[in-house]
């Protein structure tokens, strides 16, 4: 004999959020997206960037910028990713990145990390003095000045770059190129564990060869 039909069955009272988190009336979990930077230490091998960017697009993570460059170790490179995701998404990016073969270590940077971005932008050259004043105000440099265009570079955190770009708008920005953020943990803190370990190993190795 069949039991009750779907609509007659007793329903459990609980619910989960769209992220699979149990919605507990006492501690209802909501996760607003937040913007954060992840630093990944990777083996500097062909295809590593394609692997990382492929992963990001395949899994539909919201990525703001991605920069790559070498480290003190010629075999490794550092990738800095700025992402905007709710908390579980941030953790997923971290864990999925770690699964990629060439990725050695991944760490979310703290709020106090040192973040820098470079913008190169080209404005109309009609008012060179005014452009110069803005450039000085933002500690920038003039890279090229001609009768028709002036090209400058500004370095700083994201906010400063955005402000500077706004300030240049009055002259008419013809083109600009931003690098995206690159970053290191502040002070004594290591950006990734792997680097700390390597640094320590190198120190001891140097130490032993000294004593020999």
């Amino acid at each position, binding site marked *: *004999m*069949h*039991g*009750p*039909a*779907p609509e007659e*069955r007793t*329903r*459990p*009272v*609980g*619910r*989960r*959020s*769209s*992220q*699979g*988190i*149990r919605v507990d009336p006492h501690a209802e979990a909501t996760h607003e997206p937040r913007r954060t930077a992840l630093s990944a230490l990777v083996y500097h091998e062909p*295809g590593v960037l*394609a*692997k990382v960017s*492929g992963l990001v697009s*395949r899994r539909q993570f919201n990525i703001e910028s991605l920069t790559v460059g070498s480290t003190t170790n010629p075999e490794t490179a550092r990738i800095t990713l700025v992402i905007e995701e709710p908390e*579980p998404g941030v*953790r*997923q990016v971290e*864990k*999925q990145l*770690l*699964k990629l*073969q060439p990725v050695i270590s991944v760490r979310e940077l703290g709020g106090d990390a040192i973040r820098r971005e470079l913008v190169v932008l080209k404005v109309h050259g009609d008012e060179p003095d005014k452009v110069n004043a803005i450039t000085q105000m933002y500690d920038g440099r003039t890279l090229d000045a001609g009768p028709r265009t002036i090209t400058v570079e500004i370095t700083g955190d994201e906010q400063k770059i955005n402000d500077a770009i706004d300030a240049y708008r009055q002259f008419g920005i013809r083109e600009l190129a931003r690098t995206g953020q690159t970053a290191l943990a502040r002070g004594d803190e290591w950006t990734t564990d792997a680097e700390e370990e390597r640094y320590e190993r190198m120190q001891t190795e140097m130490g032993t060869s000294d004593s020999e």
Partner: protein
Amino acid sequence: MSEGSPARPASQETETETETTGETGGEADATTEDAAATPERTTGAAAVVTALERANVEHVFGVQGGAIMPVYDALYHSDIAHVTMAHEQGAAHAADAYGQVTGAPGVCFATSGPGATNLVTGIADANMDSDPVLALTGQVPTNFVGNDAFQETDTVGVTRPITKANYFADDETTIGDLVTEAFTVAGEGRPGPTLVDLPKDVTNAETEARPPEERDAAAAPAAEPQAVERAAEALASAEKPLVLAGGGVTKANASEELRRFATTFEVPVVTTMPGIGTFPEDHDLCLSWAGMHGTGYANMAISHTDCLLAVGTRFDDRLTGGIETFAPDATVVHVDIDPAEISKNVHADYPLVGDAGVVLDQLFETLPDGPDDRWATWREQCATWKEEYPMSYTTPDDEPLKPQFVVEALDEMTPDDTLVTTGVGQHQMWAAQFWTYTEPRTYISSHGLGTMGYGLPAAIGAKLAAPDREVVCFDGDGSFLMTVQELSVAVRENLDITVVVLNNEAIGMVRQWQDAFFGGRRMASEYRWMPDFATLAEAFGARGFTVDDYDDVADTLEAALDYDGPSVVDAFVDPAENVYPMVPSGGANDQFALSEDHL
């Protein structure tokens, strides 16, 4: 043989090849003494084969071709048996099933370009199901790579999103190491497919380098003891605990640990479809599998549990239905070897990262002993659901043959350790629902990707992996046609497998959905004409049977099983029969429909 010979220009490729083949052929025929001695091998290709030999590979599945020829040539002298498949997709599926049955990576070969792209479906299938597979693909010579050369495809690029790891072998001195590494990576931790792309100049190049002896397997990782303690506390304080066993239990060979855990504490068990067989389906505590077409009682239990111990599952949407309604009252203890699975789809309140068997034992040691009396009520509730929502179908005499009856009949005639493979569709669901699985690794199917055509090549791989066991394949008429050419392989290798086509003259699963959700508009889902599968089987050199009557089922199946070689039973079943229970896509697990009336 000369050492340190200069790299040859690519234009001489073909010449060199003929030379090499001629040479080896001559060597083998020369004198009896020479033939008895192991031929000296000094190429990249030989290193590839040595790597496979050192990994104890016994069978490889593949199809020849220009770019992979050097590797095949190196196989000429090896004891590894090569099974020539009709299509590379078949090679990948056969390797996949072979890997599932043996537990070690199955190996498949393909040439560059179309050979490699034909593997893609099989690799993607293995990737979704975490099956250990090593794919070796030929590639055009390195100085042609990127030039759109004849039969060139960026195989590493194409397979990047569907492999656990892939490699481009650009150096003959490390090619063997790469193959060894790819083999190891495919099988360790959370298994998955790996691929090594082998450019022809690299496999042809002379080298003395040989892969390392096999490295020791890494110890199975345990979960953090404090985390285990907290999870055990959560379990102990639950009123309605439930174990959900996924495919990860199979991969970790953790069926014994699961059985000990569940039977000692008397906790009911549901499995996922890939977890079928990890817990015996004829045990009182077993509620069979949950999900879209899982049993009503498994889905009721999932919906009402207050503590779900999920082991080795990725919470696929076919299992969970709508996330908002999945196990809504449950705290979740999630055991998985892959940290990226934790809180990917369902939030884990108690994550336990480690090997399924090791962690189940850790929990076993940590929990207070014996079954909890409070759980008796919960067990009774589960038993009631089993009575309320039994798996059943009707078999009035005047109706056409029911597919479920055929499945049950064959189950009764075969031993417990019979290996069942399937295609994808309604027949796959009936094979999962109406066959009672009591051993792990006996239901071999395409779960995550849902690849029609998986069944027959998988049966070939399974039979070669376990020649002494009965192998049967339940296929759909549509699925069977997708890889039917592999029947030639089963005949050539004289494999004793029995294919039962549950022929409903349609791609039935699609038709079921059209009837339920598209106003019955059966667009492109009904076959107006189908080949006669029994005659087709005979044309391939197999035995063919047809059956459409209840009275003949037993005799026909018996005859097919008795035939010592591949046989195909074309079973004409009721085209009107549909798969129930059914949780409509994205719905709540406990809102399953038992018939059309409920949809």
